[in-house]
């Protein structure tokens, strides 16, 4: 097996996902797709530069001028839990 059960668990943790019963299926899916990717090894890319971005744009800046921000109440209007303009989450720091 190219992708061990431990690997699947590690990746699930990185992805912030819980797999449960789907773990075996997910393992098989990953295996299937990754083995297709092996085909790329047929290409010699030793001297090829990677393309991260297809357009010839670099460092698009804007002037450092203050513009009004969106109203905080509007921005937090979709929050599942909020108070005093802040988002409520479980305690993070003991």
């Amino acid at each position, binding site marked *: 097996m190219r*992708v061990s059960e431990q*690997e*699947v668990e*590690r*990746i*699930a943790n*990185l*992805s*912030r*996902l*819980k*797999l449960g019963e*789907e773990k075996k299926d*997910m393992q098989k*899916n*990953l295996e*299937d*797709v*990754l083995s*297709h*990717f092996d*085909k*790329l*090894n*047929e*290409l010699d*890319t030793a001297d*090829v*530069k*990677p*393309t*991260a*971005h*297809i*357009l010839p*744009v670099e460092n*698009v800046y*804007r002037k450092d001028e203050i513009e009004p921000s*969106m109203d905080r109440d*509007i*921005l*937090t*209007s*979709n*929050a*599942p*839990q909020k108070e005093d303009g802040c*988002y409520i*989450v*479980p*305690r*993070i720091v003991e």
Partner: protein
Amino acid sequence: METYKLTLKQTLEKLKKGEVSPSELTKNYIDRIKSVEPDVDALNETEFDEAIKKAKQMDKKVEKGEGGILAGVPYILKDNMCTKGLKTTCSSKILNNFVPPYNATVVDKLEFQGAILLAKANMDEFAMGSSTENSAFKKTNNPFDLKRVPGGSSGGSAASVAAGEAAFALGSDTGGSIRQPAAYCGVIGLKPTYGVVSRYGLVAFASSLDQIGPLTKTVEDSAIVLSAIAGHDKKDSTSIEMKTHNYTEGLDKEIKGIRIGVPKEYFKEGLSADVKASIDNAIKTYESLGAVVEETTLPTFDYALSAYYIISSAEATSNLSRYDGVKYGYRADEFSDIVDLYKQTRTEGFGKEVKRRIMLGNYVLSSGYYDAYYLKAQKVRTLIKQDFDNIFEKYDLILSPTTPAVAFKAGEKEDPMAMYMTDIYTVPINIAGLPAISIPCGMSSENMPIGMQLIGKPLSEKTILNAGHIYEQARGSFPLAKL
């Protein structure tokens, strides 16, 4: 008046002459939607009250000859483009209650030109899919055969245009998600050059590949809509510095002597006989119109699908890490701590295919695998772009089938790899950032539409629209779905 059968161009002419008002047009489309939606099920949310209000405002403007190039025209928007005050769900449970506080730039542009939003269209969840079967809410049915898929991920948008639910729709295309459903549903689907249409307000899937584009009944209609939505946007730093063009200019130019390359790799095993026959006919039509059509080659064709799935999954996993139950969207009811909040929320909120791609993306980016997969795919991307550049040194355009076969039956492609393979002809174009359009060119023996793809050099939308329009005139009218 069955105004829903008219093209956008014809509709604009009738509005100008006063033969129909925006309110009558809107009412007509609303009636049409109510009549066909039980069969097609293309729409997530309808905005009829708002549309009727807007139409009344446009009545006065259109009467005075004012109001923009789409004044009074109703349209449908794929549900991954933000609409202020109206739900935008990406057909996902994790955003099923999300109401954006702002409009996508394309929505602002369409509003500026006087268009009227009718509804948000169903799609594959987060644009991940090729059949709209990955929607968390419902399946959409192909208007030409309700037992078949409309394609995806812009299946709702394509089906809605094919069913006459609006004068045009907008979709998004990352690996073929406008062009493939356009081919399956017998409509025109255009993906502009990367950077021509602003992605601000388009919920991101793969940021270096995503583009918004129109789904319409004719090539001229496509040119009109593109004129309304293209142009530089300072809110999208990947948008090209360019002014908005009138893309309808030069549509009727003669195409004698135009050089068209047909890559032989598109005609290997896997291409259905019906599609091949239609494409061969289209080539003959082009030759009769004076085009020079020759076989060419795209040597890295076989590697494009793998490169695409590595790059798009890697970008997607990063883009989808924002869905955490904290700022907006779905939040799990029970969780033990902050990390559990994230895990429970995402596990309950995301569908199977989305989870697969998130996992795949994190795998190819994780330490130990980054070089072998992600970096490798980026290098292959360079080679694919070079292959296209080489072809465009000799040819003005590339012609190919849009898909290997016609729309498949619902539930037929259960294996993820089989589903991914339906995009094999469209993904190379996104990798290279090129403009491409799918145009109906025939019907299969099962009476399903077949699409032909025209691909151009970067920023050559006018060339592909011109070549497409001239072909369309020569082809004649295309059958409408019998709904």
